[in-house]
């Protein structure tokens, strides 16, 4: 059909342009990071000692403040002792891109320092499971409740004030309580993600439901639809693309609660990995883990967006976005 040919023709150049922008969006911060790491006169507030010279407390490989290094140079010069030699360096908490890039690989291949501790991929899998269950449990209750609140004014009046109140309570505040009730393993972590997601979810989805065009509902009623079928055959399909978008945003929200959730009880998952690596000052691994979280979150969202396009071919918001 003509329309389809036109659409594919139009979408091709714009998709290409979109990819360029996406690439640029990532390239800019990476370039900045490279500049700070590899151009010695940008920042580099430390000096890495290569030869301690006459300074007794310097050791090769040691990082010292630049001012301190200069003081020592002066002292040594006055004392007539051999001068220390060093190169300008960044602090240990800012590894260079290539170190982090290497860590992205080695973090997966290096055995954990403690023998019974999980490998990185096991930690990640554990985190994903916690997110999954927290989000699924929240959605099972939150989505239907949100849709009902958006449809029936009485129900929304009855439930929303409390939900509104509860959503201002920071989810981590319930950490200790969750541990007392649910033990120290995954229970309280899933509970924190649930609390962090659920109350926003009810409000967001109720709002989305309320935005459904009333003409569509009225049209359905004049066609003989009533009661429960209005919800199942009109409201739900009518809001589905928006509901799906809401869920994608809420899932991102759930990820932000992950780190806090995993600190509760026995530290686990990716958070455990990060805290362990930071303890051993393997900051390149810390960065690698943070990047992996980002990749999983962003990647899954891209995937869900693609799936959404397939699922809702009638959704025009997407057309507007890609045009």
């Amino acid at each position: 059909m003509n329309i389809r040919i036109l659409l594919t023709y139009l979408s091709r150049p714009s998709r290409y342009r979109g990819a360029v922008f996406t690439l640029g969006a990532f390239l800019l911060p990476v370039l900045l990071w490279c500049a700070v790491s590899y151009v010695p006169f940008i920042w580099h507030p430390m000096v890495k000692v290569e030869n301690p010279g006459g300074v007794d407390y310097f050791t090769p490989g040691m990082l010292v403040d630049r001012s301190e290094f200069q003081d020592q140079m002066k002292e040594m010069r006055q004392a007539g002792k051999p001068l220390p030699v060093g190169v300008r360096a960044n602090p240990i908490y800012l590894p260079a891109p290539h170190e982090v890039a290497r860590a992205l690989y080695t973090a997966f291949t290096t055995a954990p320092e403690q023998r019974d501790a999980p490998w990185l991929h096991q930690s990640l899998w554990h985190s994903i499971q916690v997110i999954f269950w927290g989000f699924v449990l929240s959605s099972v209750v939150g989505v239907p409740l949100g849709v009902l609140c958006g449809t029936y004014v009485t129900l929304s009046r009855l439930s929303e004030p409390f939900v509104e109140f509860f959503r201002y309570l920071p989810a981590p505040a319930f950490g200790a309580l969750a541990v007392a009730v649910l033990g120290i393993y995954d229970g309280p972590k899933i509970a924190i993600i649930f609390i962090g997601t659920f109350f926003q979810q009810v409000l967001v989805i109720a709002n989305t439901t309320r935005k459904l065009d009333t003409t569509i509902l009225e049209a359905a009623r004049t066609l003989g639809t009533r009661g429960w079928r209005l919800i199942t055959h009109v409201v739900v399909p009518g809001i589905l693309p928006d509901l799906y978008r809401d869920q994608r945003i809420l899932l991102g929200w759930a990820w932000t609660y992950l780190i806090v959730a995993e600190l509760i009880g026995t530290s686990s998952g990716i958070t455990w990995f990060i805290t362990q690596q930071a303890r051993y000052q393997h900051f390149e691994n810390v960065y690698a883990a943070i990047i992996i979280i980002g990749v999983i979150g962003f990647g899954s969202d891209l995937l869900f967006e693609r799936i959404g396009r397939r699922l809702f071919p009638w959704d025009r918001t997407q057309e507007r976005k890609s045009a």
Partner: protein
Amino acid sequence: MNEHTPTPTEALPGAGNGLPSYLEQSPAVRERFAQLQQRKVILEVRDLQKRYKSLQGETEALRNINFQVHRREFVCVIGPSGCGKSTLIRILAGLEKHTAGDVLLDGQPVTGPGRDRGMVFQGYSLFPWLTVKRNVMFGPLMNGHSRDSAEREARLWLDMVNLGKFADAYPHQLSGGMRQRVAIARALVNEPRILLMDEPFGALDAQTRAKMQRHLLKIWRNLDITVLFITHDLDEAIYLADRILVLKANPGEVQEVIEVPVPRPRSPEQFSTPEFRATKARLEALIHPPEAQGEEEAEGEDALPEKIIRFTNVGDNVE
């Protein structure tokens, strides 16, 4: 008709500019109306009243509305903005409750929306998540038809509105006129007793609108369907209607029921016939009364300001 009997002086407008009175009917037209009156009354509205509470206090949207619509009659409702014509049709559809009076469809009071009254809305009311065919199948499926029979009916009605080829398109892929044709098919597939149309062509461009009007008349001629059609377009009302219900605003009341003297079958050429022009002159006189015009223009919300700030260079005149 008992609503309003025009006095001889009222019947005069138009006489001055060489037009016949809009009350004059050719024998064929008179015969047609006599036949129409013999037909069964499908819709009867008795002493209908609608009040609602707003911030400004209680407003009376409709007062003492009385009229009947006979089987296979085409009735247009016309009136200035704010006369409650949309409220009226929404009450007839069962989407709003009236405060007093009766709405009877085949003698039975209307209590809520139902498939016996099809409705076509001004805005796009198609279900965006369903293809054109599925949109039309919606009614039959909701009313317990099997998928097969619903699909068969949908195909039939899509052919009727000449959209068979677009059965698998989504509404957003269609033009405005096509969408309204789907909406008409979707309403008609339920075989309603009456088709309620709330300014269905109001959002269309002039050309498409003319085409849709012709199409609608064609459908109406070939079906056992009664139509109540709301519009604010005088030409549209005269072109389509057997009778025109003229409402006035604040409160909404029936001002006059005009029997359109333009013979059927209708065609766009009739726009310039004396009967057509006489009827239009009468409608104009009713909706924009000449004596009130001066005051209204000065005070009304739509009045133009006396002076407009000039944003062009001095001497750069277009008139």
